Every structure is written in C-alpha cells, then in structure tokens.
C-alpha cells in the first residue's frame, strides 16, 4: 500500500532512530567498560556491593508484596461497588501518583509520616511508643506503596471490570456466596493479570532512585541506583560505580526476561461505558468492609497530597516564583522538557512508521523482520540501562573533554527523552494504527502522499495524540531527578534539583512551595497527556 519510496523512507527513519538510540546507549556502556575494568572487577564482589544488591532485591520484593497484596482488597471492593457517589474521584485519585514527580510525593509523605507528621502524632496519641520511621526501609516501603498501590489497583480493577456483566447475573441466579464468587470469578480474573502487575511494580521498585535517595541513603538502605550516584557524586570512585552499574544491568535484564513471560497488564476497560450491576455483597458486613477498605486507601493517598498543598501554600509563593534562581531553574527545566518531549515524540513516530511499513511489506525478509523486532525492543533498552547508568557512562565519556556542565542540559534532555520513549509510543502507536486502518487504503488509492498527505490527512487527525504524548513526556522530564542528579550544580539547576537542594539544606519551607508549583505543572501536563484515553478504549 505504500509506494516503494514511502516504504524506503519509513524504514530508513526507523534505522536512523535505532542507530542513534543504540549509539547513545552504547557510548555510555563502552565508556563504563573501558574505564579501568581491572579495578571495577575487583569491586564487583565486595561485601558492600552484595549488601546493596541484596537490599535492592529485598526492598523491591517487600514493596511489591505490599503494593499488590493491598491493592487486591481495594480493587475487589471498588469492583463490588460500581456506583457510589465519589467513586469516579477515587479512581481519578488513583491516577495522581503516576503524574506526580516522585520527589514531590516524597515530600508529602514526609509531611504525613515524618516525626512531626500527622500519622505519628496520632499513633503516639493512641499510645504507640515507637513511631513509624519515614526514613530507612519502612519509609521506602511506605513510599513505594504510595506510588504503586494505586497503579496496581487500577490494573487489577480493570481486569475485574472487563468481565462480562452476565457473570454477575449468573452468579446471583446460581446463588453463589461471596467466597464462591471470589474463588470462581474474581480470583481467576485477578490471577491472569497479577503476575504482570507484580512484575511491573517490582521493576519500578527495583530501579527506584529518587525515593531511596531522599528516604534511604545510609549504607543499610541503599539501592544499586543510589549507590552508583553516591559512588560518583560523593566518593568519586568510578570503578565502584561501574561495578554497580553492571550489577544493575544484570538485575534489570533478568527482571525484563521474567516479565516478558507474563502477559502485559492493560488499563483499558476501566470504568468505561456502562457499569455492571453487582448483586453480591449486599449484606451489612460486606458493605462495611468495602467502605473501610476504600476509605483507608483514599485517606492514605489523599493525606500526603493534601500535605503538599497545605505546606506549599504556607510558603511565600510569590517571592519564590519571582526569585531569580526559580526563574532560571524553571526556564532550564522547561527547555529541557520541551527538547526531550520533542525528541521522544519524533523518535516514536520514526519507530512506529518503520514497524508499520515493515508489517505491510508483502514479503519482509529475515533482515526486515529482525529490524522490526529490534525497533520493538528499543523501549526496553531504556529499562535495561537505567538513567543513572546512562548518566554515569556519559559522565565518564565526557569528562576528558572539559567542564561537564557544558554538556549537561542536552545530556539530561536526551536521557529524559529515552525514559519517555516507551510512554510516548504507547500513546501514539494506537492512534497511528487506527488512522492507518481508516485511511491507508483510501489514501493509497487516491495517490495521497508526501506533504499533501501530511497536511490534509495525517496532521489534522494525529496532532492530538502527538500533543498528548508531548505533554506526557514533558511532565516526566520536568519531574525527573534521576538524570539531573549527576550533573546538577549551581550553574545547572532544574526545578526538581532545586527542590532537592532546598530539602537537603533544611530550607524545607522553600522546598514545600517549589514542590507545590512543580507538582501542579506536572499534574496538569499529565492530565493533558492522558485526556481522552477513556474514549479511545475499545468498549467505551
């Protein structure tokens, strides 16, 4: 359906994107490898690295167990109550942590679970002598549950809501008791998606950087990513950073291989279209249980958010927003976000176009097929080699060329772009595929091509999903501390870096104000970036 020239251009674009991304990652890895490998090898097997590896795996395991384990009753309760007032707001609340910069969430959690926070004050009031610590393992677990319980709940709930409405009718006409409903209907649905959900959450927790940096950090509570950062930033011990970086790549490789075995969880079907009527759970006990479960989850999520808003409003927002350092950091952050968003969207288009051209080719040879597979794997490459590792490699590669802060903005933008690539592709790919199905044959038969086709056919339809992806990618970059942590300095400051610095220097009032501003910007961008997803879902 594509002319030979169109197909050549599309495939050429894919090769270009693949080459550039691979080069970007390869240069970082080669820089790591060629930096005195002898000494790095000796650092691989120290008690220190093993302790950090163990902690990384262990905290991720506990975080996953808690997040997914606690998400199950919440999802079951929300599925059992398809229409109570405010339900839609609780579902929307579950989407907030996804769009919130991790650092901002950490601030909110400290506000609630810190020594002076509401949670510990109430625990003391009811006579618990040992307060919960927001620092160390317990803090990391609380934070990981805060960010991942809502994600797991949404995915599990979606799997329950995808069940045909007739199931509940049949269950009630057969007179199934709650436990039978769980055993025969709910559990089989959850069991299908649970491994995928747990894999996703485990991956996120194992590669978590910012939360561990802020809440952990001591030798007893440090993950690989944070240890890499500390090796470079505080101790300047590149061999140790390199050894840790390879451990990290090893861990993510194993995880990705394990995850790829399970079906990927999908959020479609979530509260779209008509909701089923549920006939079970009408007893008082069941109602009370569901109400308590939903209320606890909602309060757990709302309190830190409220804490960000309240303490942020206490700060002198006008003074903060008009200070030179804020204006400069905001300008830096926004330009980095814009560049990284544009790169992410541009590369997504190249990759999607190339894969679509290959899939349409009448006789794709082995070469083209492996190109298509490589393009599909491109976004996993980013997961494989996390931002801190990429940053470390480039840090070492560029150090001989002089002042790192000269290259820092473009490096951070590119690392952010890579991080955003999988998300941008997930927004754009279905839209481009639907557009191709609708218009591909028609355009081909009318001879629409080149600029005319872009202007009249593609642009008017695809500009919306492209802007959504751009907005989402920008939110990700704006809130990111991972890539900037290595390069940040007084000459090169982004908004999250500024918040982190204020926090580290105990000017927490400023940090709160900045956090509120940044949080609102990122949430707004994420909302734009995910708007209309409901309507695109198949059964909407």
């Amino acid at each position, binding site marked *: 359906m594509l002319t030979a020239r169109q197909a050549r251009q599309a495939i050429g674009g894919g090769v270009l994107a693949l080459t550039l991304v691979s080069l970007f990652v390869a240069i970082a890895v080669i820089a790591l490898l060629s930096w005195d490998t002898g000494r790095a090898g000796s650092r691989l097997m120290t008690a220190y690295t093993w302790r950090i590896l163990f902690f990384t795996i262990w905290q991720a395991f506990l975080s996953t167990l808690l997040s997914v384990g606690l998400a199950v009753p919440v999802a079951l309760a929300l599925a059992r109550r398809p229409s109570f007032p405010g339900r839609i707001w609780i579902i929307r609340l579950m989407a907030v942590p996804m769009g919130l910069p991790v650092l901002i969430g950490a601030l909110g959690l400290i506000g609630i679970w810190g020594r002076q926070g509401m949670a510990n004050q109430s625990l003391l009031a009811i006579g618990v002598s040992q307060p919960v610590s927001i620092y160390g393992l317990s803090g990391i677990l609380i934070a990981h549950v805060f960010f991942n319980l809502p994600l797991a709940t949404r995915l599990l709930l979606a799997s329950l809501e995808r069940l045909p409405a007739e199931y509940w009718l049949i269950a009630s006409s057969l007179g199934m008791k709650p436990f039978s409903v769980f055993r025969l209907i709910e559990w089989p649905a959850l069991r299908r998606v649970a491994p995928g959900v747990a894999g996703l959450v485990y991956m996120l927790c194992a590669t978590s950087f910012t939360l561990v940096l802020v809440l952990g950090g001591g030798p007893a509570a440090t993950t690989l990513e944070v240890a890499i950062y500390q090796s470079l930033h505080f101790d300047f011990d590149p061999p140790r950073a390199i050894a840790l970086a390879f451990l990290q790549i090893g861990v993510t490789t194993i995880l990705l291989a394990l995850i790829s075995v399970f079906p990927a969880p999908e959020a479609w079907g979530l509260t779209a279209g008509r909701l089923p009527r549920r006939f079970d759970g009408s007893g008082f006990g069941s109602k009370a249980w569901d109400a308590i479960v939903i209320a606890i989850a909602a309060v757990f999520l709302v309190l830190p958010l409220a804490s960000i808003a309240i303490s942020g409003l206490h700060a002198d927002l006008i003074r903060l927003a008009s200070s030179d350092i804020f204006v400069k950091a905001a300008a830096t952050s926004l330009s980095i976000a814009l560049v990284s968003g544009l790169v992410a969207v541009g590369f997504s288009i190249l990759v999607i176009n190339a894969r679509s051209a290959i899939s349409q080719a*009448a006789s794709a040879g082995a070469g083209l097929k492996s190109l298509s597979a490589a393009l599909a794997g491109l976004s996993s490459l980013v997961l494989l080699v996390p931002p801190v590792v990429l940053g470390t490699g480039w840090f070492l590669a560029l150090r001989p060329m002089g002042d790192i802060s000269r290259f820092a903005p473009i490096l951070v933008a590119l690392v952010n772009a890579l991080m955003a690539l999988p998300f941008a592709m997930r927004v754009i790919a279905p839209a481009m595929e639907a557009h191709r199905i609708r218009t591909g044959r*028609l355009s081909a*038969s*009318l001879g629409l091509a080149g600029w005319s086709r872009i202007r*009249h056919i593609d642009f*008017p*339809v695809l500009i919306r999903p492209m802007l959504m992806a751009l907005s989402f990618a920008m939110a990700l970059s704006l809130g990111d501390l991972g890539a900037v942590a290595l390069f940040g300095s007084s000459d090169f400051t982004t908004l999250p870096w500024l918040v982190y610095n204020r926090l580290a220097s105990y000017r927490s009032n400023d940090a709160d104000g900045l956090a509120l501003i940044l949080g609102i910007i990122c949430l707004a961008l994420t909302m734009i970036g995910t708007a209309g997803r409901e309507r695109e879902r198949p059964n909407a």
Partner: protein
Amino acid sequence: MPEKILPGIELDNVELRLGARPFRFDCTIAAGAITAITGASGAGKSTLLNLVAGFSTPASGTIRIAGEDVTRSHPSGRPVSIIFQDNNLFAHLDITTNIGLGISPSLRLSRNDKAQIEYALDRVGLHGFGKRMPPELSGGERQRVAFARALVRQRPVLILDEPFAALDPGLRQSMRILLLDLHRETGNTVLLVTHDPEEVRRLADHVIFIEDGKVLVRAEKTEFFQLDIEPLRHFLNDS
C-alpha cells in the same frame, strides 16, 4: 468500438500466499460490464479485489487492466476507483474536499474542477452538501459522496467492496439504481464484491464465484443462476 473487445481486467496465473493459505486466480473480467465477485466468507473475494486494486502484490503471475501490465503498480497508479463498505471519507474533511481529493491529491483545484465537484454532488442527489462534514451524513449519503468522488476521478474501472452491506434494505435499492445509472453514463468496468445473491441478480452482467482461493465458476448471470452444483446451491439458499 475497440474498447469493448478488449478484456477489462485480466488475471493471468496470479498466485499469492497469505499465511498458510494459497490463492490462485486465473480469469478475465469483461470491459464495460458489471461483474459480480461472490462466494462464501473467507473464500478469497477480498483478496481478488486487493490484487486488482493494488493493495496486495502477487508472488507470481500478471495482472493487466485495459491491456496494460499493472502487476507492480502502486494503487494510485492504476486506472481504478474504489469504494469500500465503510470509511470512504476522511471524517475531518468536508464533503467538497473529500471529493476534490479524487481530482488532485494535493487539492490544487481549478475553477473547472470545482464545477465538476458541484456537478458530481448534484448527480448523486446531494446538492448543497459541499460544506457538510462526513459524520453529519447518514450512511447512505456518505456512500453517495464516495460515488461522486468516483465520478470525478473518471477512471475506467470501478471496484466496489460490499458497498451497500452496511445500509438498510430500503436504501440499498436506490443506491443500486444510482450505480446502474452511473455505469450506463460512463460505460466503466465495474467489479462488485458481494455476498448477496439479490444484488448479483439485480446488478451483474457476469458472475465470478470464488471458492477456496480459486475461481470456481465464471459465467453470464442467467447461466450462473441455472447452474446446479453443490457449493452454489449452498450459497444461494443460505443467504
């Protein structure tokens, strides 16, 4: 008239494999007549259509339209207009623009072209619809716009892929009359893919019956309905 003698479309030992399924078409489609392509679902009707329109390329064999080898031509390079069952219009472009794309893909339209578009709209009974958007129109009206576009394209071959299947039975009859009128007016070669025996009866001059990826029967319409072989009986009774 020499055109009448020329075969409209020839498929000369055209072979293609989709997944594990082999297709082999070897047949001639008469110029200036309406030929219905029919058969059970999945028999290969759409595959034949895709080959003629250029959406699929055969592994071997030759496809000729009006004597010219088009086997490797891009869809837009073939003397063909096509009307699908649905999605014939770009939903975000108004009716005039949708028809105008049939004349110039870059929308460079002369005054004469615009007059032609107006005439075509008139001809399909949609006078004054030019500024409307496709979602405002009914299914039948949208198909009429597709006919108007085929009209301004002035290609000797018109391919229709179940064009009325999504319409109400009442509407189908008036659309059939429109198709016959336009066919008589332009003398084009029409290839009509349909699974509806009624449509074959009312519209076709010739019938090609496809089964299992091959042409099973190629006959004049009257001849076709007198044949008494098993797959055909099945087709005629089931529908």
